């Protein structure tokens, strides 16, 4: 029932935004939506593990992601208002932007708590459509290209997921189970035919890599994050990647109970280590901040998948890493919005002396650099350490050494680019320093809060977070 009310209210908000097309109505409906999103979130938390409407079941992993989404989307809407203060978009494109963003957040929320794989698939499809609208926000030929590629490749991937679902349906029919509910699959995992399960896993995994940002289909995600407005990119590289992770995670849970667990781990390890490799290779020669952060997301998703594949304490590390990465990366994307407004360019070669122009933002960015590269004050150090420890314990020493070397490249490349932005002399002749926009320090405060949350959760995880993570991993032990 709550889900129907939630969806109906969202529909009213969206139509309100699209009909009135005024700044004030955008404000009002967005704030109402945030209130609704949090109410929904808390309601689902209080009704966890209770089946709703037959097809939804908020379990622990879904709730973790729902909390992350609510936090990130609150920040994203705040930064969207800042974004629109400084652009001269028409009221029409503004209202389309807000409507698409709210649709995206809603469909993500529903995808997280869906219990039936086909329902999840529908909401995945909806996220594709709404995010394509967000990517096309700038209406330039480049953003059109990015939106087209994103929509086309995502549609293919969604078709792949559907074929995978059909194969899964075959396995379910042979085992005489009723419906492809995740809970049913988990209970009867051993009855499923391994051949169809393998085929389904391969197809669904490949399909979800578009969203999760892993090899083989990571490419369009990079273009989308590059071309979308930065508040939307923040959601792309946190909540949407989490959804891809969740899609793989749910099937992996089922497979971990069957005889093909080892094989699935091998698939994950291959894809994950290739992702880290590709991210390192592109990081060294990347020319644009947003793309740099997008490649860094791929690296982190690769590390999480390694944790999932290796198991043991790696499971806990992977989920913790997922939470922390979402906060850190989205907050870095918000900062790129400010960088773009100061430097009038996303290119690394056009940037410099950011410390002099926006000191507070620059300090936040330095903190963000330490957090995202998982250096010790960062909470991500803890989760990454857990994953590496589990790899060490599982005798993947050579892989671990290679991954650490690749991480060194990534840290070096990111440090080089960010410190060029912060401290070197500005060489872009087109910018006159007097006209440069002054950014108020208030804007960086939410980012700072997110970074501090990363540190706090990493070192002193609150009991309810710990509980949720442990309950999410019950089926993997």
């Amino acid at each position, binding site marked *: 029932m709550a889900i129907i009310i939630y969806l109906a209210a969202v529909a009213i908000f969206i139509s309100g935004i699209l009909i009135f097309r005024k700044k004030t109505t955008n404000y009002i409906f967005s704030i109402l939506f945030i209130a609704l999103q949090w109410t929904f979130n808390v309601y689902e938390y209080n009704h966890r593990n209770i089946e709703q409407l037959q097809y939804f079941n908020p379990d622990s992993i879904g709730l973790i992601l729902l909390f992350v989404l609510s936090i990130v989307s609150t920040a994203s809407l705040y930064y969207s208002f800042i974004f629109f203060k400084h652009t001269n978009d028409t009221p029409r494109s503004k209202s389309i932007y807000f409507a698409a963003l709210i649709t995206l957040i809603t469909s993500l929320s529903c995808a997280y708590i869906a219990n039936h794989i*086909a329902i999840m698939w529908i909401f995945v*499809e909806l996220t594709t459509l709404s995010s394509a609208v967000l990517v096309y926000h700038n209406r330039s*030929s*480049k953003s059109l290209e990015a939106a*087209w590629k994103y*929509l086309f490749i995502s549609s293919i991937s969604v078709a792949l997921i559907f*074929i995978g679902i*059909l*194969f899964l*349906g075959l396995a379910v029919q042979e085992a005489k189970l009723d419906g492809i509910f995740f809970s049913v699959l988990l209970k009867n995992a051993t009855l499923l035919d391994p051949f169809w399960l393998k085929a389904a896993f391969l197809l669904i995994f490949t399909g979800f890599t578009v969203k999760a940002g892993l090899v083989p289909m990571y490419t369009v995600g990079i273009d989308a994050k590059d071309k979308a407005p930065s508040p939307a990119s923040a959601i792309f590289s946190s909540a949407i990647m989490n959804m891809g992770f969740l899609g793989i995670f749910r099937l992996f849970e089922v497979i971990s109970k069957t005889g093909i667990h080892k094989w699935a781990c091998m698939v994950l390890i291959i894809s994950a280590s290739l992702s880290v490799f590709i991210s390192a290779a592109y990081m060294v020669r990347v020319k644009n901040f947003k793309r740099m952060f997008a490649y860094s997301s791929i690296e982190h998703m690769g590390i999480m998948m390694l944790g999932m594949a290796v198991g043991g304490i790696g499971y806990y590390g992977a989920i913790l890493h997922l939470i922390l990465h979402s906060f850190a990366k989205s907050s870095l994307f918000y900062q790129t919005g400010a960088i773009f407004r100061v430097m009038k360019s996303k290119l690394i070669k056009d940037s410099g002396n950011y410390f002099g122009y926006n000191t507070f933002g620059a300090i936040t960015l330095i903190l963000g650099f330490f957090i995202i590269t998982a250096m010790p004050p960062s909470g991500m150090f803890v989760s990454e350490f857990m994953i590496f420890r589990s790899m060490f314990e599982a005798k993947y020493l050579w892989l671990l050494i290679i991954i650490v070397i690749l991480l060194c490249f990534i840290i070096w490349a990111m440090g080089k680019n960010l410190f060029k932005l912060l401290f070197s002399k500005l060489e872009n002749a087109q910018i006159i320093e007097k006209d440069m926009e002054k950014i108020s320090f208030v804007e960086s405060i939410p980012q700072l809060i997110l970074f501090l949350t990363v540190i706090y959760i990493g070192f002193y995880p609150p009991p309810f977070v710990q509980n949720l993570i442990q309950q999410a991993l019950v089926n993997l032990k």
Partner: protein
Amino acid sequence: MSLFVCSTAIRLSTFIKVLVLQGLLLFGFFIIRLNEINITNLILLLLETVIFKSIIIPSFLKYIIKKNKLTREAEPYISNFSSIFIFTFANLILFFLANTLEGGVFQNIYFVGAVSTIFSGFFLIILRHKIITNVIGFIILENGVVILSLAVGKEMPMLVNLGILLDIFVTVLVLGIFANKLGDVFKEGEVDQLNQLKD
């Protein structure tokens, strides 16, 4: 069925006619397969295959082609002979593979047809460099998915319906908004023009 496979194998200038034919063939499959399912369901599916797949989409594509003056045929990256050869070979392998699988739950012939249609969709997407051909490849891929859901989903009408409804939704969106816009912005409609974003 073999006609179906061949029609996708030739696919040079007659893409749109092929699409119409595929829509009508899907209609035929539905009549053969689904007559035991309830009547509203049946009507919905039939309307979808006939009206949508064999009338609306092809005419829309024709409109786009006319509007953007895409008179030239889609030239593939490899020659016609080798593409037919590869395609036939792949289909043979698919047939043997499907025969080694156990029957029972699904009928082999539908399964083979579906997989080869999906394969030819991918084939078109990868080996042609007109945007419009890629879109057609995607539609063929979706047709293949529909047949597959027929082959597999005898006991899952809900899934079949969902798949088809979403199929409509996506193709309308993909075609309607973006293909049109792309035609306006990139006049030639070559995939090679879409290379501004790279590292």
